[in-house]
């Protein structure tokens, strides 16, 4: 972190302290503002001090965020069965992991659920975003409110409401019920992301395509869809991540034999520490970093540049 290139221009230095003052809290900032409203008494933090505070805050946060994760990774290669003493490098836990049938089947189930949930919620979410952004209909405000509710109500409420629903209609809990639950909570996230892009959409591009003889379907396929693609991919990655990480809703809607990876990990770490879970966690960490990088790469927006 010491290699950070501090490229503040002199004029910006003073401004850099402002955010740190934020940390002083509302009440203090408020009274301070009153205290300095008399013209001559102008209170300004020295720029170097402000910058120092900002830098140390950032350094501490990143250390706190990453240290536990690094420790987890390091100990996944420790040969000791328990405890935190380093007894030598070992790939034993990874080997155990590969031969653990429970983990393998949980991983496959997780991917099945995430795959279906992502595809279905991305399609429905995109359609819903198009309907909300481009059409007027009766009860639109109500529908919007209901649709965004899953984002703002606690996940546990969604999980138990679906449990009660499936019990009430006599549907046995299985992977299918998990997929349904995941689809419902992923749709709003996809719709929000796609709709944000639709709001900035230049509709003259579609009109131009139709002036040039493309029919509606061709216009949609060759103009609208490619331009929306970064948002659709962004929504799909969001849905996929939400699905493979979910514990709460899954716990309520999974039946016997539909244990996903997060449920398996949860059941294990509730009991205690096992090095196999360290190894599994490390693999999942690497996978999510890969996913972030891939999604950033995919969202680089080649279509948008061409259109300009």
């Amino acid at each position: 972190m010491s290699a950070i290139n501090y490229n503040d221009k002199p004029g910006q230095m003073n401004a850099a302290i402002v955010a740190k003052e934020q940390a002083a809290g509302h009440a203090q900032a408020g009274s301070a503002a009153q205290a300095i409203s008399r013209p001559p008494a102008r209170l300004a933090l020295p720029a170097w001090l402000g910058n120092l505070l900002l830098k140390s805050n950032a350094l501490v946060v990143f250390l706190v965020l990453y240290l536990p994760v690094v420790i987890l990774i390091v100990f996944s290669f420790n040969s000791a069965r328990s405890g935190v003493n380093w007894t030598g490098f070992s790939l034993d836990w990874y080997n155990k992991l590969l031969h653990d049938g429970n983990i393998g089947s949980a991983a496959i189930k997780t991917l099945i659920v995430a795959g279906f949930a992502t595809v279905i919620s991305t399609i429905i979410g995109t359609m819903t975003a198009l309907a909300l952004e481009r059409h007027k209909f009766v009860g639109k405000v109500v529908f919007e409110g209901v649709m965004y509710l899953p984002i703002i109500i606690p996940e546990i409420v969604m999980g138990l409401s679906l449990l009660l629903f499936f019990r009430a209609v006599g549907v046995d809990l299985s992977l299918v019920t998990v997929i349904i639950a995941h689809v419902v909570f992923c749709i709003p996230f996809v719709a929000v992301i796609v709709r944000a892009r639709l709001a900035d959409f230049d509709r003259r591009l579609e009109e131009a395509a139709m002036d040039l003889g493309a029919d509606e379907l061709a216009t949609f396929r060759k103009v609208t869809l490619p331009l929306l693609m970064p948002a659709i991919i962004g929504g799909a990655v969001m849905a996929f991540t939400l699905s493979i990480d979910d514990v709460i809703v899954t716990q309520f809607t999974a039946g016997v034999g539909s244990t996903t990876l997060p449920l398996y990990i949860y059941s294990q770490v509730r009991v205690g520490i096992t090095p196999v879970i360290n190894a599994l966690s490390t693999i999942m960490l690497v996978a999510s970093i890969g996913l972030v990088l891939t999604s950033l790469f995919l969202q680089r927006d080649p279509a948008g540049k061409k259109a300009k």
Partner: protein
Amino acid sequence: MKQLDIKENRGLAAWVRRRPGVQAAGLLLPGLIAFGLFFVIPLLIVVGVSFTAKKAGTVDWTHWTLNNYVSLVTNFAGDFDPLYLNIFLRSLWFALLTTVICLLVGYPLAYFIARRGEKWRAALILLIMIPFWTNFLVRTYALQLIFRKEGLLNSLLLDGHIIKQPLDMMFTPGLVLFGLVYGYLPFMVLPLYASIEKFDFSLLEAAQDLGAGTFRTLRKVLLPLTMPGVVAGSILVFIPVVGSYVTSDLLGAQSSGTLMVGNTIENQFLKSQNWPLGSAMSLVLMAVVLLAIIIYFRVARGDKEGAAL
């Protein structure tokens, strides 16, 4: 869209094209079915169940009662110790503290990142995004490795002869709070960053040229203009925390000082099979969350208007 008229008007596609209502209905139908069937109806069932009498593992639709709501307020663990009310208050308190701490730490951080050069900005925001996308369970579990009794911190402190007895950090409210901040900080920083990054920093210089000091510039210029980020971040932290149970379960092990409403609801459904009580609790939780959001929006908007004067 006027050009539509000069096109050939044949076939199903053309028929649909002339009717925006049909298009809207077609686009809307899947979402409508998904939400009606698997969201609205289940919620209505929860409302119904919350008024029924307890029957283990099933719902007794023939006996209606208000007892579940009454017992939320009147269930006492001991003298002057309202069990459920305390759990609700604790959850709200934890969620509020977590949100405030995330804001106090996250705002300067987001500001710091937004003021770096382009390359550093991209790298640092990626460092925030990685934990955001990483499995929450895995990250909480990593804290267990450090803070449990036989964990890394105790073993380092013992080896360094700083302490004689291992510290008991697990199962304390402080550690649960730390775990919540640790878990949800990225949810605060990302929207804050998005909003600070759009801010025109020359406004800060302008304010100072016009005679405003550091604190005044902050309160009257930067804060009001980045308020959308503050609101979004606070909501993204507060809501999941108030209903959370994984952190308090793994780091607090449901000890009496760390039990949150999420744990209690989970217990009603997955352990003690008291569905009506669990339903009542979750509806109250939902109402509390919605109320908190409404109040928060009011306050945030009032703050913005006040600051703009």
